[in-house]
């Protein structure tokens, strides 16, 4: 195997592939990154792959091939080396059981891992549809923020993806908040109907890293065809991940549809004030909000602790309301909405509140962030 490639092109591709390398590989070959140089659709391409039995990543870039071939080297080491190479053409070649990386006057010799032991990457499932990459990344990040991080409740560490014709609904919850976002896409089959539970962290990382191309293709293996898997492809990169098992909560029933109060607050001011006031809130102590006509009072701290208070302008329709929240959950929700004005809808101080952007005429994104309040000790 022997090929030449631009340093920046290689560095990008290697760095992206290396993100999927397992931190503690269950078998040594999984620490390797597979390099495969050859012809692909009539173009000379290098394909880089990594896999940890959960997630696979594969990227292909243009190169000049002198001699096609495959080899497996330590992914971390390759990524470190490539990241630090000078900005010149890189030549990579095999020399017996070794791989030589040369760039300018620098030369590295790496040991190879047994390429024949490397597992076959899962095949990409059949294409289900495609979506604009930027819109997809934005939607995923809005939803993934509410996903759980507790591995003892694995079904809550995922984003639920529901596909119904041209509509994709994303939802995630950690039991304390719930984020739901709908977006439109272009399905292969207009009558498609499918659901999947995708690990939230993988989905968020993937969606963000696939914005180099205009579109992201999504391929979902239906539940009937063996192990559930979803694949994403865009801009020469593709990744697959195993789906999570388990029953996702029936979240639609949790979204209240009637409210006693609706408040609107300038979002950036609100976020700043929440961050300021919660400086005095120790861990697990909530931020208290009091909405009345024309103003919002934020308070934190109590008794013989440090205290803070700030007053903002706010419009209110309906009953005055006092309610307390975990300030991190509140900031997450406010940051996730796209509008400059946050709309908060309340029922009572112990019932879920809904945060959305103030709706605009052209029908802005349908994003809802439900947040459970903190019940103050009496």
């Amino acid at each position: 195997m022997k090929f030449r490639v631009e340093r920046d092109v290689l560095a990008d591709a290697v760095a992206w592939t290396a993100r999927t390398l397992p931190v503690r590989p269950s078998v040594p070959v999984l620490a390797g990154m597979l390099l495969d140089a050859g012809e692909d659709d009539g173009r000379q391409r290098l394909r880089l792959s990594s896999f940890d039995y959960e997630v696979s990543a594969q990227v292909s870039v243009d190169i000049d091939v002198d001699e096609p071939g495959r080899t497996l080297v330590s992914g971390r080491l390759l990524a470190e080396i490539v990241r630090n190479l000078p900005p010149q053409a890189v030549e990579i070649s095999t020399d017996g059981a070794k791989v030589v990386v040369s760039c300018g006057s620098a030369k590295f010799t790496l040991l190879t891992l047994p390429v024949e032991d490397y597992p076959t990457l899962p095949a990409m499932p059949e294409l289900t549809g495609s979506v604009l990459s930027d819109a997809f990344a934005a939607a995923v990040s809005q939803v993934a923020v509410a996903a759980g991080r507790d591995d003892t409740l694995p079904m809550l560490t995922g984003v639920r993806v529901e596909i119904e014709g041209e509509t994709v609904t994303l939802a995630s919850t950690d039991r304390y908040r719930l984020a739901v976002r709908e977006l439109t896409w272009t399905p292969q089959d207009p009558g498609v109907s499918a659901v999947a539970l995708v690990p939230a962290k993988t989905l968020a990382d993937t969606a963000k890293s696939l914005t180099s191309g205009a579109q992201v293709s999504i391929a979902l293996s239906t539940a009937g065809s063996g192990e559930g898997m979803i694949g994403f492809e865009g801009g020469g990169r593709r990744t697959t991940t195993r789906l999570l098992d388990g029953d996702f909560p029936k979240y639609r029933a949790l979204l209240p549809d009637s409210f006693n109060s609706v408040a609107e607050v300038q979002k950036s001011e609100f976020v700043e004030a929440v961050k300021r006031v919660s400086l005095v809130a120790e861990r697990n102590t909530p931020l208290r909000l009091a909405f009345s006509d024309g103003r919002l009072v934020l308070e934190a701290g109590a008794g013989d602790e440090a205290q803070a208070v700030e007053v903002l302008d706010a419009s209110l329709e309906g009953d005055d309301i006092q309610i307390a929240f975990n300030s991190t959950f509140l900031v997450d929700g406010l940051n996730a909405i796209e509008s400059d004005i946050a709309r908060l809808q309340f029922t009572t101080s112990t019932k879920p509140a809904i945060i959305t952007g103030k709706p605009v005429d052209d029908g802005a994104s349908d994003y809802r962030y439900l947040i459970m309040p903190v019940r103050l000790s009496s």
Partner: protein
Amino acid sequence: MSRRQLERGRAVRGTVTADGIAPLGRADPDDADCVVLHIDMDAFFTSVEELRSPGLRGRPVIVGGTGPRGVVAAANYPAREYGVHSAMPMSRALRMCPDAVVRPPDGAAYRRVSAAVMDILRSVTPEVEQLSVDEAFLDVSGARRRLGGPVRIAELIRSRVHGEQGLTCSVGVAATKFAAKLASTRCKPDGLLLIPTAHVAAFLHPLPVGALWGVGDKTEQALRRLGLRTVGDVARTPPETLRHELGQALGAHLAELAWGRDPRPVTTETADKSVGAEETFDSDVRDPETIRRELLRLTEKVARRLRASGQAGRTVVVKLRRADFRTVTRSRTLGEPTDVAREVFTAAGELYEASGLSGVPLRLVGVRMEGLVPAGQIHHQLALDEPDQGWRAAERVQDEVIRRFGAGAIGPAALAFRDEDDV
């Protein structure tokens, strides 16, 4: 040296002066800085018994176990004249005083009266440090403007306890807890003694070293070896010598105390560091289901105690002792403090499962909650799938049922239908 030897057994209402104890006269007592009161109920258990059976008054009364290994828990003053005292084997007490009326202890009755007395004390000032059922320290510095000087407050307490509960108590008044406690001991029963700060040293120095707080048999022997028999001997010994002979902490402590210097403040609550319960099995148990059930029983007990004391714990600790006494403890810190048995048990059960001792014979299991905070300070992050009335509410109802109908009236089904001894 015991407190018994310090008691004179004759009522005193006086003040310590340069010439010994003088009756409190009409003149204002020298109590300006003597804000610590030590209240000690007189022969508490037997007094409660006398109150319930007035015919006992004047006769020797002993409260204690009546079985073959029974021990005297308390004796009234007539019984004490025969030499009966607490912790003495009942058989010996009855040989000394064959006419004594013996009553088995009735803890519930004593606690009821105790609570009423403590309520009186707390109406004087919230600064009450309860030491036991029949003893408490008060810091009355905040009550002086309202109620007058410390001696006056002491008189007020004595007359209210007598008027409302029909019991007598003795009150020591001094600037420190140490001196106040000595004063109440000295003036028992039904007495009041003020030790003005100027006379504390003079009062202390003739006392035997055993009167010093922190001096038990061992230390008393060590001091005797140094030729120190009275508090005054200790006071006149260079502090370095005491530290050298008795160790840094104890030596320094006694050198201060011998001059009546006691830095301990009256603290309203001695905050518990943890609340726990453990059970030693009659014979080793290996069945995981039985262990889990025992963990549940202990958890219920711990959670009930937390709720009763208005506390919640953050860290669940499980203790498992194997048949060969090797002991492992495993702990988990929860997201937020809890007093709900259901939540504690979930963690405790998982800790047991993860301990690797499932199926291993155990002689003891224990459950403990650490990281305690007042329950009033817990804010509860509500969850989406949480019912309005959850386990917390169910367990509060359980507390209420147990309060009315007694322990065993209600509990987890897994613990039902078992021997009474197990519940």
